[in-house]
């Protein structure tokens, strides 16, 4: 999940040790636009597709990690 961590840190300009507590409702950086950037980066870099329902459900990093893990990700090396 290193790749996911990197993407999230990059999008929200945060550090890895803060990810577990990262919440959409409380993070200033996690606005609606950055949410879309996050989805776009995850789909492109990790070569997966998130459904609309999954995208709506991503309320925090924990949920995001779980959704991505369920997709048996094979990380791509580059975008």
């Amino acid at each position, binding site marked *: 999940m290193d790749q996911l961590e990197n993407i999230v840190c*990059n999008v929200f300009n945060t550090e890895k040790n803060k990810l577990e507590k990262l919440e959409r409702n409380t993070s200033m950086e996690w606005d609606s*636009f950055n949410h*879309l*950037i996050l*989805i776009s980066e995850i*789909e*492109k870099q990790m070569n997966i597709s998130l459904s609309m329902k999954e*995208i709506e459900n991503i309320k925090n990093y924990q949920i995001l990690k779980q959704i991505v893990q369920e997709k048996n990700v094979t990380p791509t090396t580059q975008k």
Partner: protein
Amino acid sequence: MSVQKNNISILEFFKQYKQICTKKKSFFSKKLKITLLSSFTTKGIKEVLTVKCSNLNIYVEFYECEYKQYTQEILNPQSNLYSFDPSLILLFIDTKTILGENFFFPYNSNAINRKTFVKTKENEIYNLVNILTQNTSATILLHNLEIPSYSPLGILENKQEFGFAESIENLNNNIRNTFKKNNRVLVFDYNAFCSYIGKSKITNEKLYYLGDIKIDFEHILPLCDAYLAYIKPLVSISKKCIVLDLDNTLWGGIIGEDGIEGIKLGPTPEGSPFWEFQKHLLALFNRGIILAVNSKNNSQDALKAIKKHPYMVLKEKHFASIQINWNDKISNIETIAKEINIGIDSMVFFDDDPLNREMVRESLPGVLVPELPQDASFYSKTLHQINDFNTLQLTEEDKKRGSIYAAQRKRSEFKSSARNLTNYLQSLNIKITIEKPNQFNIPRIAQLTQKTNQFNVTTKRYSQLEIENMSKSQNKIIVAIKVEDKFGDNGLTGVAIIEKNQNHWDIDSFLLSCRIIGRKVENSLLAYIIKQAKTSGVKKITGTFIPTQKNLPAKNFFEENGFMLDKKNNLGIEKYSYILEKEYFTPNFIKTIELQGE
């Protein structure tokens, strides 16, 4: 469509954007206020464009209308758009917004109704653009519409009278034709941009349904590159001159080793890339880009190839400067800049050798040095991707520039054979024609005020609209000069703008194109102004010299022409005056023709 390859993601641009926002405006040499009026979510354009402009030393202030509020902003004279007072407006209305439900069901109505509907929409666009041109002084970049590759009628689409695609094509054609002669409104070919990216790729459908984002984030980068093609000439940072290496750049192989018969140039698989590259360069020359040669070679061998090779497209006459010697590339570029009298930062350097490219980048950072691919097959593509040669309009002077500079080389050769400067100037048979502003020369006058850096006493920049307004003012006089000599016509190359006051005239602007500096034509222009001032009964002419990093050639203009220094402030700004009782002597070797009327 000139779009460069972007190797970094939009995320990196967002980070850089935050850093740029902390920089002071005074850090940048150019400033630009941009407004984006769009019919969908365009977040990302502001950030990417600001970063890309910042990399060109342009400070951007950006105003984006609220989501889908472009019509309200345009129609309301009290809106933030107008108080922001932009110099560039990006008006970006997309096909779906324009067509509404007709986008999905174009064939619910007949051809006549479709035509009426599209005409109505077209008029709505014109109305918005007209209001913008009336209420701002901005240049407007109007996006045409993407023509969808999908049709509800499938393969029968092209059988329809005024069909879906045809109706949008028609609208695009009408937009293009309507604004062809309007210098304030430029049409951005968004449909061509979509084709370049690939119409199936331009939108990420998920982002579109989630946030009405119609351009996938990754394509915002090339879109902003395409905007730079307009921004660069708008802030006068276009390139004027291409400096070319010869071996493995203009032809394949090494002339000193392979000989004229052995180099690769012409209609063969190995020679075609070089042959076509030269043709593209010639096309740029024909629109006014100056060409020069910078090659480490035996001069005789290389010149023989230029003159005699049957497939050499670029001839000696196309080059404003030819530096074929064993000097380093950097000093040759400096020699070329000096010889043709243009700034180093107006130059682009093409060389197949990465070491030479790196050396020039390091030593002359103002020179644009494209990364030329190892494979010559991609040379032409590399040239096409450079969006630095644009002008917002092409004047007759622009088209002739390449030939004018090539004639300048002949002039320089002639100068070195002359006995002395006076003898040289006398034998040039210089003729200047003095013109008043008119609809034909106003674009060029404005262009000269915007681009002239060296012989320019105040470096005041004026838009075409401002020149037009000044030409109608009773308090202003604008004088333009055309310069010819026995080597050719230099075109309209000098401008003076005078402000008429009750007791004196003030020289607001006095400038000469660098291509005619040193031929004393400024004296003839000044003589004309003095004559007019005397006729009007004023007693004195005043002038100001405002120093810049580049206008040293104009520094002594007033002093050398009999003006008295009245005061100088701590910024180096000098105020001069000329008492009109004094006799002013105009150079007798210049013939002056005054065109009457406008």
